[in-house]
């Protein structure tokens, strides 16, 4: 089993979700996050005082999937989240050692 963490632009969230569902992914978790990479932050001005906002808001999707579905999921995210500009985000893939469905106690791929 793999975990795909995709940090994407917030306004791309709906597109990415639809693409993943079309690719056969049945569940995912999303969190609002802030951070920075190559895309620099911006400045905001309140009553003449300027503030640098370094942490840019992004959406982070977490998807756990069977090994066989990995490539399809990555392709879906790439295709849906790409704009070609700095700040499109990142995808991280890691191994998952176990998953358990709390309702039934099923384990492994069955529980995804």
């Amino acid at each position, binding site marked *: 089993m793999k975990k795909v963490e995709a940090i994407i632009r917030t306004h791309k969230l709906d597109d990415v979700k639809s693409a993943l569902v079309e690719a056969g992914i049945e569940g995912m978790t999303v969190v609002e996050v802030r951070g920075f990479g190559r895309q620099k932050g911006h400045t905001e001005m*309140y009553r*003449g*005082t300027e503030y*640098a906002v370094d942490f840019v808001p992004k959406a982070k999707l977490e998807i756990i999937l069977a090994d066989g579905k990995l490539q399809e999921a990555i392709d879906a995210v790439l295709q849906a989240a790409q704009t070609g500009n700095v700040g499109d985000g990142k995808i991280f893939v890691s191994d998952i050692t176990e998953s358990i469905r709390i309702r039934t106690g099923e384990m492994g791929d069955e529980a995804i």
Partner: protein
Amino acid sequence: MSYLKYGYVFLCVIFLVGLPLTSWSQDAVPEGEPTLELAEGESENVSTEEAYEVEDQSPEELDHEAQQILDLKQAVAAAANAGHNGWMLVCCALVLFMTAPGLALFYGGLVRKKNVVSVLMQCLFLMGLMSVVWAVCGYSFAFGGNGSSHPFIGSTEYLFLEGVSMTDGVLATKDSIAELTFALFQGMFFIITPALICGAFAERMKFSTMAVFSVIWGIVVYCPICHWVWDGGIIGHGEGAWAGGALDFAGGTVVHISSGVSALVACVLIGKRMGFGSEPMPPHNLTYTVLGAAMLWVGWFGFNAGSQLAVDDVTVTAFAVTHLSAAAGVIGWTLFEWAVHKKPTALGAASGAVAGLVCITPAAGFVQPMHAILMGFIAGALCFFAVTTMKSKLGYDDSLDAFGVHGIGGTIGAVLTGVFATSQVNTGYGDALGIIDGNYKLIVGQVVAVLVTVVYAGVVSFIILKVLDKTMGLRVDDDAETRGLDLSEHGEEGYIWL
């Protein structure tokens, strides 16, 4: 469904009752004339046909007719009085609405998330505290006695609202609002004025000291200034006053300059917030701030138009110029901000509206609509420079710009009242008011009133705060300030997760 029916019936009743009331109050008799004479005067003016009829009547019938006219006059005066009282009670509610939610949201959105509850609490608690203080002694100290017998502070005659009538009028005119209505209306000003000061020491003031300060400040600073300006005291408009006194329709000196200057003194004495200038301190919720400003705008109609204490032509102009000045304030602040900082901001527009409203407060009821637009625009522009350029140059930490908006805006308004006040709008204060009426004396009185208020409010606030600093302490400790006043002072959070 049945509620809907009751509501419908209720509306119909209101409409039916309201219709004759409105027409009576439009026909209301001129103020101040004794009713009996009026009744006689009226009978001379009846049309010729009616006059012949009168000649045909016996003396008994004539007496009967005079009595009927007298009764009618009394009924008309009572109806007009009901209208004035009703309007003023609505104004009381509008002015209260300015403190919370208006000011509470305006200020609450501007602080950091960890201090939002503390600001809301300050506003709400002052609504409770200052109302009681006003009823117990504030009203008496502000409006007891009169200017000649008590030039500096009111008397003790109305302590505990003793003798404040719910039926007798507060003014000399026959259809005047009740004294209790007046006391209530003025009490709302007594609440919002110290609440305005809270903007200066937000995010670091001890709650207990804030409460004690507000009570002492209300009695020692607000009540005397209120008495000087509105109860025939030393700077109220009139012969006995210093330099002829000042016109202050709704509280430019009493409310805004006094609170603005005290706010400046307070923020200098308490010191800057920890991390001021090095840590980011942006507003945590501009949505609140913009909504709060909009509520202030609405509430201000009660504040300014209500200050006529009746419904008449001056009320109408006060209402109109209040609106126009706020509108021009929005434009003034936003345009200059756009030019200087390249972007028009919602916070700028909200602040500009408040600056325009502050500026027109002393002048409402005295100035023409076009001059109000000019005044609002000037206030918006100058207050923008006060809170951006001047504040950063001088380096004080007036957290929410209580001085920059209320102190500066109030001063601009008070001075410009001496320029634009005109007897074409308000005939109650002589033939020539401001410079545009060709009178150069009023502006001297305005400036003197500003100076007296600045010096008095500044010095006395300084003394009160110094004493409180030595006895109670003004500031929370560093740890409490870092954690935020919500947790350290109130044991609460504004936003709970789950």
